[in-house]
Every structure is written in C-alpha cells, then in structure tokens.
C-alpha cells in the first residue's frame, strides 16, 4: 500500500518549520567543518564522501553497520532471512517509520526505490545512471550480470529479494550509504534533479537549506524511529577548504567539529584542553605503484630496490604524524584476511643498490614519478610525500621527476597507463578483501582500477576463486596466498594505512567516526 496521508510538499514544510523555530532558545546546534561541499543529496546518485556525510543523516539504509566496524546491524529492516541457496532474502521492516514528508515507510517504498535504481526506463532513473548500483549489483535490469531478479512487497512490512545468482556480500552491500531509501512521493513530485537538492528520507535529521559551497543545514527529526535520538536540534555542515583555516575556525569556536585535520596539527589539538582529537578507524591504503609495463619497472628487482629505498617509517612520522601505520600488504589489517605473517622489508639503501646493480642499473636511472595533486584520507599530502620519496630515491641514484596534473587528468591518464611510477590509494567501501585486492591488482581490472597493469596469472586465479568461494575461511586462505605473491613481485609499495584525524570541541560527545568515512550523527550530543 502506498502513502495514505496527503501533506504539504516537503519544501514548503521545511520553510514552515524553519520559520517557527525559536531564534535562540538554546537549541543544541552542531557545526561540522569540512573541506568540500556535497555534490548532491540524492544518495543513490552520489559517489563522493562529502555527499554521504550529509545523506547519512537524512536517510536510512535497510541495514546498517555497527559503530566503528563493518559488521552488519539492523536499521530500517529489523531482521532478515536468507534462503540456504543464497538466492532469496526476506526483510522485515520496522513499523511506524515515516518519511520527513509524512508519508509512510513500507515495503512498497523499498520496492519502488529498488525499481527506480535498477530500471533504466524508470521515470525517475537519472540519465547518468546510478554508478554504485551498477557496480555492486552487476549492472541494471536486463543486463546479463544483473544480480537482483525481483523485489516484492510481500505485505506492508515485508520485502522479498530474489537474486539471479548468489552474491556473498549482498547484505554487506545493502548497508552502503548510497542504498538509502528515499521518499517515493518526494522523488516523484520533485523529479530527480530537484530531489538531489531537497532530499527527503527517514533519517534522524530533516533537510533545511543548502547554500552551495558554504553550508548545509539540517534540523532534528522529532519523529525519528530510534526513540531518544537525535540529540541535536540542528546540524550544520560548513565548507572551509583549507585544513589550517578549518582548525582556526574550530579553535575560534566558529565550528564544533572538523574532519581532515592535518596530522601535523594533531599535537596542537591534543595540547588544547578546549579541543579533543578523534581518530577514524582506518580502512584504507596509500601506495606507490609501478606501471609494470614501462621499463625499467618491468623488472621486479628494480621494484624491490625501490621498495627497499623508501623510508616508510620516516615518511609516516613526518607526514602522518604517527596517525597511520606502515603498510605491508595492500589489505588493511582491520579487514579480515590480512596476512600478518609477511614481514616488511626494512629501509636499506645498500640492499637497494645491490638489487639495482643486479638488475643492471648500478648507476640508477631517471624516472617520472606521478604525484597525487590532491589530499585524500589515505594520502594526506601526495606531493610532499612524493618529494620525500624523491629524496630517498636520489640516494640510490634514481632521479625521480615529479609530475603532477589536475586530479581528473591524473585519474584519466593513470587509467590509460601513461604513468611510470605513481601514487594512489583506496578507501574500502564495505570491508571485503576483494574490494582491495581484486580491485587494485587483478588483471581484469587493468584499464580500470588496476593502474599498475600487473597481470599475474597466479594471483588472478586465486582472486577469482576467492570471489566464488562460499565460506569466509576458504576465501581467507586464498587471500593470504595472494598477498604473498603480491609482496614478492612488488607491483606496488604499500605505504601506509592512515588513521584520518578529526578534531572537535571538548564538549562534543558520543561522536564515533566510521571507517568507511561517513556516519550518522544521531547519537552525538553536546555536554
């Protein structure tokens, strides 16, 4: 059954509530400073973290992740059953949940959302498509590889998913921020473009106003299903592009919470009794990659020599200010399947030189070193780290010329394999090892995210096997082996798993950053 009550359109309602709000009756207000603006607020249409930081507060997903981990927990679905063949999933929805526009959340709404996402011909399907849906569920309705066969509303609060083939991380995927349930009525009435700027969900906060490149304002959803939450009356996301400027604003009391703290400033924050340092659990990797198709990087000895020459601890000390650990494998240790047995190469110039000599380059060589022009959580300052690596390499006679370009161009060209040595990284989406190992290093992904163009048959076979294996133990074993091969052949030098740092006013409590980079702030409160 659809929505029963007719209410004023969301937008109008918003302005009303805003107008009636008392000006300064001491509402609890939290201002979050961040580096960039959201791209859009229709979660399914987004891929960037800045957008999800907001949408997670406006929308809910069927299932959620536990605090600080990727373990799946109930959300809009209170419980679910999986058929033994892994092809049918039945979700029992929470009752009494309403969208911000007053319409009911129910099985029909879920079904409608999935139809919108999966069917290219759906009237509210965006012309650009829905990137994440496409990736996670093997394409759209009608595609050969499409995973979801059907979504049925069994009754008001029961939804049944039927799959074409088993997908091990299906439930895991449903927890991703993008698969949040939007109000069908609002989307239909506004159309995808307008909805993208005036989101209506079931989440703890309602959307109020968006001043582009400046602020997004949300207010408390008093009818939130999770009784007692949210704690805050008002939530504001404010854009302050410069990391230092943001810290200044925090210190000055203009904002309450900020992300993207420069690791260098962590100490400053700790020393300030007015502030607190908050660390986000790490689920990422920053690495130096080698385009193994380019000489002399096609020679594993050369790659290994470089691995020896990079002084990882010094770099982590200098640029992560200790907020990160040296990476040994592409997979972060926080994800299951990480191979703890591999011991990293020590920083050793002599060994590096010796390997170079063995490879036939006793006097080193010249090489182009592509450096990331932007800061990412996994690589706080690409160019500076590149400069440090450049200094290191000089010691073994390798003259690295740093090349930077616009981020878009960088991604484009590295994908095409124009680079020699380069830097990049990855933040996990759902806590599955496949999301790191296969994405970054499987030969099928050459021309895609495997920018090292490393096409190792052995590793490929293992990775494919792991994808279709059914038990975690089985998969884990395969991933351990893959990591050994990677370590030996050195298609990349994993640099660090960084711990993104945040800072907040001392009176901010119950803020638990999530490893995936965005989270709902419903529990956050002010002392």
């Amino acid at each position, binding site marked *: 059954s659809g929505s029963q009550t007719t209410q004023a359109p969301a937008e109008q309602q918003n302005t009303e509530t805003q107008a009636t709000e008392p000006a300064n009756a001491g509402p609890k*207000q939290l*201002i979050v400073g961040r580096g960039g603006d959201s*791209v*859009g607020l229709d979660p399914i*249409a987004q*891929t*960037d973290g800045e957008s999800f930081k907001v949408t997670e507060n406006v929308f809910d997903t069927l299932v959620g992740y536990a605090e600080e981990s990727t373990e799946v927990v109930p959300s809009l679905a209170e419980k679910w059953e999986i058929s033994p063949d892994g092809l049918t999933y039945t979700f029992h929805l929470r009752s009494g949940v309403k969208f911000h526009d007053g319409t009911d959340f129910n099985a029909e709404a879920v079904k409608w959302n999935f139809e919108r996402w999966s069917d290219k011909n759906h009237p509210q399907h*965006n*012309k*650009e*498509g829905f*990137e994440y849906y*496409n*990736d996670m569920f093997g394409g759209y309705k009608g595609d050969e590889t499409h995973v979801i066969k059907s979504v049925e509303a069994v009754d008001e609060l029961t939804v049944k998913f039927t799959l074409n083939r088993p997908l091990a991380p299906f439930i895991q995927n449903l927890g991703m921020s993008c698969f949040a349930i939007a109000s069908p009525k609002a989307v239909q009435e506004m159309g995808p*473009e307008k909805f*993208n*700027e005036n989101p209506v969900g079931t989440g703890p906060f309602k959307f109020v106003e968006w*001043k*582009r*490149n*400046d*602020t997004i*304002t949300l207010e408390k959803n008093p009818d939130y299903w999770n009784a007692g939450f949210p704690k805050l009356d008002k939530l*504001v996301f*404010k*854009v*302050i*592009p*410069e990391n230092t*400027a*943001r810290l*200044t*604003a925090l*210190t*000055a009391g*203009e*904002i309450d919470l900020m992300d993207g703290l420069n690791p260098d400033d962590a100490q400053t924050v700790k020393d300030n009794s007015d502030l607190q340092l908050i660390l986000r659990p790490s689920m990422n990797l920053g690495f130096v990659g080698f385009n193994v198709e380019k000489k002399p990087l096609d020679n594993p000895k050369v790659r290994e020599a470089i691995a020896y020459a990079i002084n990882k601890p010094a770099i982590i000390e200098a640029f992560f200010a200790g907020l990160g650990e040296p990476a040994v494998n592409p997979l972060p240790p926080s994800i299951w399947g990480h191979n703890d047995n591999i011991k990293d190469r020590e920083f050793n110039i002599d060994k590096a030189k010796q390997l170079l000599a063995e490879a036939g380059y006793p006097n080193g060589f010249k090489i182009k070193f592509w450096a990331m022009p932007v800061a990412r959580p996994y690589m706080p300052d690409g160019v500076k780290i590149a400069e440090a690596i450049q200094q290191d390499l000089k010691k073994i006679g390798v003259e690295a010329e740093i090349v930077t370009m*616009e*981020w*878009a*161009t960088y*991604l*484009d060209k590295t*994908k095409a394999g124009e680079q020699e040595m380069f830097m*990049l990284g990855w933040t996990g989406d759902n806590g599955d090892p496949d999301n790191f190992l296969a*994405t970054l290093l499987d030969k099928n992904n050459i*021309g*895609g*995210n495997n920018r090292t163009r490393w096409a190792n048959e052995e590793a490929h076979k293992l990775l494919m096997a792991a994808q279709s294996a059914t038990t975690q133990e089985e998969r884990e074993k395969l991933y351990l082996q893959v990591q050994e091969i990677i370590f030996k052949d050195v298609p990349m030098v994993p640099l660090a798993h960084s711990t993104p740092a945040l800072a907040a006013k001392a009176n901010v409590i119950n803020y638990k950053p999530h490893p995936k980079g965005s989270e709902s702030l419903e529990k956050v409160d002010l002392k």
Partner: protein
Amino acid sequence: MALLSYSIRRILMLIPVLLGMSIVVFSIIRAIPGDPALTILGEKASPKAIEDLREVLGLNNPWYIQYFDYLKQILSGDLGVSLHSGASITQEIGPYLAATTELTIFSMVFAVIIGVNAGILSAWKQNSWFDYCAMLIALIGVSMPIFWLGLMEQWFFAQELKWLPSVGRDNSRNPVEAITQFYILDTILAGQWDQLWEVIKHLILPSVALGTIPMAIIARITRSSMLEVMRADYVRTARAKGLAQFWVVYKHALKNAMIPVLTVIGLQTGLLLGGAVLTETIFGWPGIGRYIFTAIGNRDYPVIQSGILVIATIFVFINLLVDLLYAYIDPRIKYR
C-alpha cells in the same frame, strides 16, 4: 540623446566581443585535457559507465555542434546544468556571484576611499614626508602578492591575535538568512544588527587582502593625475580668482584628475571580480572565482563556460559603465 545613442552603440559593440569571448572560452575548455565524465564518476568508475555518460552529456558530438547547442542555450537565457552537481547554473551561480560582488564592492570602497585620498594628499603635499611614505607604501602595496598578504593577515589577525574571523561570510552559529544574497543588505533589511556586525567582521580581512593592490594603484594614479592636473592652466586660473587651496584641489583639480582614476577603478573592479580566486581560496569565500576554479578541476564544462562568460560580461559592462561615467564627469567627451 547623444548619450543614449552612444550607450546603444557601445552595447552593440559588445556583441562581437561577447561572441568572440564565448568562442574563446568554448575552445579553451575543449582543449583542456581530462574527461568530465570520469571526473563526475570518480576514481572508481568503470569504462562503460564513463562512455555512457559521455553520450548522455553530448560530449561525443563534434565540437561545433556542441558550440551551437551551447550558444542556442545561452541566448535563451539558460546557462546550462552543472555536470558536477546536476543543478541549473542559472540558479546556482547567483549566490556565488553575490558573494564575490559583495566582497569586491567592499574591497573597492575601501581601496577607493583610502587610495584616492592618499593620492590627493600626496599630490597636494608633493615631496613632503607624507608623500614619500604614502607612495612607498603604495609601491610596496602593488608589489605585494595578495595570497601572501592574505595568509599573513590570517595568521596574524585571526590565528595569533584572534581579532577577526578567518573564513566564511557569516557566523554559522547565527547564519544570515539570505534574501538578496548580499549579506550586508540582507542583515539591514532584517534589522539584524548583530549579524551585520558579524558580516562586516568577516569582510574585513579578505577585503583588505583583495583591496590592497587596487588601493595602491589608485593612490599612485590619483597622485600622478593630480600632479598633472595641478599644473594645468585652469588650476592657475582658479587660484588667480582667489580660491583657497583646498577648493582648488578638491573642486577644480579633483574632478579632472578623476578621469584616468576612473579607468583604473573600472579596470580593477573587473579584475577583482575574476581575480578573487586566490583570496576566495584562502578565506573560504563561497564566491565565483572559487566556483570556476573548482569547476576547472572538475572539468565541469558548462560551469566554466558560463562562469567565465558571466564574469567577462560583467567586466565588459563595468567598462561600459565607466565610459558612461566619463561622459558624466567630462563634458568634453563627444559620443563618438
């Protein structure tokens, strides 16, 4: 009437310039490497998705078709849709433009008031102690990299002394309710005096950074223009009438001296409007400069095109305004 026909002619003359500008902008942007589809979809996108998106965005059409599509669209008053945010640029650009305009006006007012008066006093007291100091400061002013000045200001006045806020347009805890998007106006309309004060405080540092160079340039040009005018025969005539020096300077000399100063003010206003990229980046000002700069990074063609075109159009119209002001100040201008 002559003025009207002159204005019309000036506006008509703008058409080829604007058209030329649109071609330039359009071709420059097509020449920028990097695929907007990729940028939109991000580093995790699949090749197929990118290709599909290119098709949807019309990026696979020949460039001239793209240009004429674009031109048609612009002429119908539609600036297009941002590839990045999917929002209509016509709507989106307003607040950015307002933010930059407010900053520009504030900076220019600061620059003009101080610059013109310093220039006049320097010329009046030529070779005096004041003259030397003012001109040396002005010279240092023109030599100042604004981004450095901005950083230093921020460091000193915001971080060390904590006198003034360092970023943004208003206090987020007490945000201005935007009606016109010009916050000074908005707060006055709403009678929110505490907010007005906040808004002004936020304007000070970026305005000083942005206004320093124009101020210095205006001071220098005012001085040299005044010196030239002060040598003019009619100034001697005015003095021979028995007029006090103050009136000679501020009435007879100033109005004539303002003519070249006006050009500079116009030119600088235009430059500020577009050149605010640096200041806006440093001071987190949600303005048009940063909007375009970000768009370049995102390969957001429509935004770059329309953004630059809007700025350039304003720039061209400021020049027109300056020309008309000339005609007002200088009756000799024949509307040729």
